[in-house]
């Protein structure tokens, strides 16, 4: 018969027993439910009411991993605890069978146990801060359910009730506190402690009376003791080995066999010192829940990520910013290049204002990281636009007047200060000084509409309402007459005649607007094309003589008449009618000069109006152009313009162009011609060419010159170029006989002498302009080279087999030797190899011998040292220089030039063409082929810097402080220089007609009898000049 306890529990089976008591499987008779009945034989001192209250607290415990406690009672002095029956087996059984558990499995169980402990240790379940302490955690008290989860069983109920003398312990799992030991201050192990821990059968009274030999305090197990037991349990589950009974003999788990983190967690949980263990189950659970985060590999990866990603992000950002900066700078640079090109185009068009404006825009004043330094092209554009290095006298582009449509006619006032340009169907009156428009005058709607200056302040024009007189100063129309298109004004400015299209009469007015006469053309009319709105063939002649008495007019039928406006009976018929279709001419005093043209053949004649007789004339099978006014009669034929005497026919050349003259204009001083090649060329009164320009793609149809101004216009362009005469004589530094022919003019370093020379002769002047000597150079046809020595003013004349050095003071030869085997010039001296094989270095300043060595080879050259034929290896020494204290020289051999240093070591090789010369600066070597493009190379490594001027011969390189000056002769013989950036060798400015450089300042020779000097302008100076010009 089965045993029934407390009339409720029928014992089914005895499922376990131990030192603490016996565990039964029982059936709850009323609930008919299996329960576990744990009988504890230990004596409890707790009072019944307290017992009841605490059991109620235990009964309220409810957790997944803790069995539900139903009851607690005392029967027969045995304490019984009634709780859930958990199916499965405790973990000690598989351990006893030798089974091992995987680490993840153990970790999972550990977390479940810790969750259960967190619940139990919570102060809500007991006296704070202890909560409920299990006190006997070990594999045997952990049930593994069939579901795979665990359940913590077998509470030490006595401890939960606060009993101090009934603590049980399981060897190996029990913490030192279970033995009443307090190791919290890490005091060394003392006698008795180890023995106590190894005596696992003893019940430790918590008052510590049995452990009097130790100074250790006796303590009651708390939540940290459970942590120890759990650690020991995990130790056993993982390793399969029960931990040592003595905590000090526990062998740590192998970090090779188990994860180091797990080993550390278990070791920490099992630390003998409770203060060094996890202080709570939450803390240990946290460590287990954050295994991945706290794993060194994770930390290492995070650290790597935290270092690499920001670095790469910074590099990306830095690279992107650098690229962006480069892009912006490239854009700025490209913009500057484009603007520099615009500036050059504007300059080519003669529009200086725009050229300067574009150049200034290409040189932004604002500085930033995104704006690069000024480009060389922009600098050059500004210096070219300002013309600071053009010190020549002459007519320089000043402004461009842009009309709304193509130009039909353009004239200057007698003083040149005002211009009128006719287009369809208005006339624009402009100020040549400022380039500004004074007024726009509406014209009759015909391309024949004319506008003629009466004087500097008065203009007669074919107004929309009739012929009008306009006061320029007052900007008002003085009077308006009958409709007119063609207009003629007498030289005295008192009579004006007008003809309207093809009407057969002319109306003559006095200056006040009163009609003086109407001149009938009878049946004749002037030549007008079908549609004269847009076409003016300029075939008609309509001219008044000086006092307005005579009016010359040509007609469509080839007729030509000179009418007497005062007496029609005195009119002269030159042609009644003829085959001529084009007439030109005018009055000069009493003479009427004209040309009549048909099919490219012309007749020129002069009529004496006083004698009513022809004075002279001739016919040519080419077109003759005629300009006749009170200054004279000028005719053009083919490429020549001459002034012709009306009576004698004597001709004085005023212009000689290189192509047929299309139109010309003269004033008292100068002549301007427009040619079929669209050149516009200016000559002085001696027919000496002042300057020549080309209008480019636009036609050069109209030119006029008066006072200090000239204008150039074309039928196919609305742009009118205004040129101004510039006198730069204030820049003169020296005067010489302008008729003395020479190639070069050089000023000595001390400025005491000036030498003009070519290969045949030189002339030496004193600083005051007095001529010292003129010397013819002997054997001139064999001169190989000439070098002016600035320091002394000497001239070295170099032949293939001779050397002559002339004194810069007296003009006498200070060295003269012929029959030489070789002569080589270097800036520091001339090396000669004489007939006795002596290598001698001759001082260019004194003509004296500096050094002399006996040459041993067949050929040698001297450039500060002996260079024998072996070294040259059939090469040719093409340049040498002394840079600091070191010599450097270039030897060409075929198409390779080797540059050597002072020790004869080859520095590098560069390509070179036949017949090249080499120049040196401090940082570069420049090759100058006779035919080809000179190029600059870095002296440091021979890398190419830049190609220099194409199609010109580089004659010399001069290093200045901040620049390099390169001098050239163009294919057409023009001498000019290009100022270069010393690093990039990009051109910074063009210096036409540069003759010399003195004290770093350029000197110009325009072969007009003077030398002129300026200085090298810095870019800031140029900008200031440009801005001053703008403000002005």
């Amino acid at each position: 018969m089965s045993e029934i306890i407390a009339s409720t529990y029928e014992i089914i089976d005895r499922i376990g027993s131990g030192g603490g008591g016996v565990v039964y499987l029982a059936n709850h008779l009323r609930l008919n439910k299996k329960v576990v009945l744990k009988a504890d034989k230990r004596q409890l001192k707790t009072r019944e009411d307290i017992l009841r209250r605490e059991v109620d607290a235990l009964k309220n415990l409810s957790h997944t991993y803790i069995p539900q406690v139903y009851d607690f009672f005392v029967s027969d002095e045995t304490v019984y605890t009634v709780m859930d029956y958990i199916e499965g087996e405790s973990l000690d059984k598989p351990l006893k069978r030798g089974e091992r558990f995987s680490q993840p499995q153990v970790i999972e169980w550990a977390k479940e146990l810790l969750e259960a402990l967190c619940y139990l240790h919570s102060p809500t379940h007991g006296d704070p801060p202890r909560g409920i302490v299990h006190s006997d955690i070990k594999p045997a008290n952990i049930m593994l359910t069939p579901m795979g989860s665990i359940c913590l069983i077998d509470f030490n109920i006595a401890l939960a009730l606060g009993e101090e003398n009934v603590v049980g312990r399981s060897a190996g799992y029990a913490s030192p506190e279970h033995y009443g030991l307090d190791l919290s201050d890490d005091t060394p192990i003392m006698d008795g402690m180890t023995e106590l821990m190894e005596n696992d059968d003893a019940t430790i009274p918590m008052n510590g009376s049995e452990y009097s030999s130790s100074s250790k305090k006796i303590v009651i197990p708390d939540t940290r003791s459970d942590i120890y037991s759990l650690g020991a349990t995990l130790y056993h589950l993982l390793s399969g080995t029960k931990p040592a009974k003595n905590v000090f003999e526990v062998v740590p788990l192998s970090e090779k066999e188990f994860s180091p983190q797990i080993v550390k967690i278990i070791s920490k949980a099992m630390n003998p010192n409770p203060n060094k263990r996890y202080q709570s189950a939450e803390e240990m659970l946290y460590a287990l829940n954050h295994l991945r985060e706290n794993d060194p590999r994770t930390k290492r990866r995070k650290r790597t990520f935290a270092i690499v990603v920001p670095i790469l992000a910074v590099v990306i950002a830095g690279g992107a910013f650098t690229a962006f900066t480069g892009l912006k700078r490239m854009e700025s640079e490209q913009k500057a290049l484009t603007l520099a090109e615009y500036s050059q185009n504007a300059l080519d068009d003669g529009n200086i204002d725009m050229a300067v404006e574009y150049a200034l825009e290409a040189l932004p004043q604002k500085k930033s990281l995104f704006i690069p330094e000024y480009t060389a092209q922009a600098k050059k554009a500004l210096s070219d636009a300002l013309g600071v290095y053009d010190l020549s006298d002459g007519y320089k582009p000043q402004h461009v007047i842009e009309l709304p449509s193509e130009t039909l006619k353009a004239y200057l006032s007698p003083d040149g200060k005002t211009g009128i340009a006719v287009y369809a169907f208005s006339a624009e009156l402009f100020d040549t000084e400022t380039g500004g428009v004074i007024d726009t005058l509406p014209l009759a709607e015909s391309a024949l509409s004319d506008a003629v200056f009466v004087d500097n302040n008065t203009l007669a024009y074919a107004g929309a309402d009739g012929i009008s007189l306009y006061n320029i100063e007052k900007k008002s129309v003085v009077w308006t007459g009958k409709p007119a298109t063609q207009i003629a004004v007498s030289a005295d400015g008192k009579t004006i005649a007008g003809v309207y299209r093809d009407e057969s009469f002319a109306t003559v007015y006095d200056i006040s607007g009163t009609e003086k006469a109407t001149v009938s053309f009878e049946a004749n009319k002037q030549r007008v094309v079908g549609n004269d709105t847009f076409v003016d063939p300029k075939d008609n002649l309509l001219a008044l003589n000086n006092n307005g008495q005579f009016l010359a007019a040509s007609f469509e039928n080839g007729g030509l008449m000179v009418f007497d406006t005062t007496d029609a009976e005195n009119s002269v018929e030159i042609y009644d009618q003829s085959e001529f279709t084009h007439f030109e001419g005018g009055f000069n005093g009493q003479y009427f000069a004209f040309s009549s043209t048909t099919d490219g053949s012309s007749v020129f004649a002069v009529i004496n109006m006083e004698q009513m007789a022809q004075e002279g004339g001739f016919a040519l099978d080419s077109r003759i152009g005629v300009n006749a006014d009170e200054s004279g009669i000028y005719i053009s034929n083919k490429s020549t313009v001459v002034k012709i005497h009306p009576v004698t026919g004597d001709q004085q050349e005023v212009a000689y162009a290189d192509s047929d003259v299309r139109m010309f204009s003269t004033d008292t001083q100068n002549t301007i011609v427009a040619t079929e090649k669209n050149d516009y060329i200016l000559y002085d009164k001696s027919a000496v060419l002042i300057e020549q320009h080309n209008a480019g793609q636009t036609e050069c149809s109209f030119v006029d010159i008066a006072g200090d101004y000239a204008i150039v216009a074309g039928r196919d362009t609305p742009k009118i170029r205004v040129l101004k005469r510039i006198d730069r004589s204030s820049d003169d530094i020296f005067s010489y006989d302008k008729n003395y022919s020479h190639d070069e003019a050089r000023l000595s370093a001390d400025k005491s002498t000036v030498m003009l020379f070519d290969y045949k002769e030189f002339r030496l002047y004193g600083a005051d302009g007095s001529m010292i000597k003129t010397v013819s150079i002997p054997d001139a046809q064999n001169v190989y080279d000439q070098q002016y020595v600035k320091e002394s003013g000497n001239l070295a004349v170099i032949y293939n087999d001779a050397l002559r050095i002339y004194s810069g003071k007296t003009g006498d030869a200070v060295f003269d030797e012929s029959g030489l085997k070789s002569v080589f010039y270097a800036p520091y001296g001339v090396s000669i190899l004489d007939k006795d094989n002596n290598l001698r270095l001759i001082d260019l300043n004194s003509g004296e011998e500096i050094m002399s060595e006996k040459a041993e080879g067949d050929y040698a050259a001297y450039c500060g040292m002996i260079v024998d034929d072996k070294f040259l290896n059939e090469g040719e020494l093409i340049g040498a220089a002394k840079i600091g204290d070191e010599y450097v020289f270039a030897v060409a051999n075929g198409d390779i030039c080797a540059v050597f240093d002072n020790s004869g070591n080859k520095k590098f090789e560069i390509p070179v063409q036949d017949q090249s010369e080499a120049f040196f600066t401090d940082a570069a070597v420049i090759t100058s082929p006779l035919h080809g493009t000179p190029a600059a190379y870095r002296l440091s490594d021979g890398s190419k810097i830049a190609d220099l001027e194409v199609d010109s011969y580089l004659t010399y390189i001069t290093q200045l402080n901040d620049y390099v000056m390169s001098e050239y002769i163009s294919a057409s013989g023009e001498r000019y220089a290009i100022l270069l950036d010393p690093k990039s060798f990009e051109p910074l400015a063009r210096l036409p007609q540069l003759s010399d450089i003195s004290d770093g300042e350029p000197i110009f020779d325009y072969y007009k009898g003077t030398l002129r000097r300026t200085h090298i302008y810095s870019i800031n100076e140029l900008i200031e000049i440009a801005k001053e010009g703008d403000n002005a």
Partner: protein
Amino acid sequence: MSEISNEMLFYGGLAIAGLAAVILIIFLIVFFIGKIKLNLKFDMEYGAKPKKTKNKKRR
């Protein structure tokens, strides 16, 4: 700056940024592949990570 041309700045910067971006992408790929591999290792060592479940909050 004068010795370094604007083209060098642009193309150099672009190359540096591009190279760094490629390295970053490669690093991130390697890093995340490594992370996956490490997670697998962790799964082996510490057990599979419990999947997070979305709990609707009750008001």
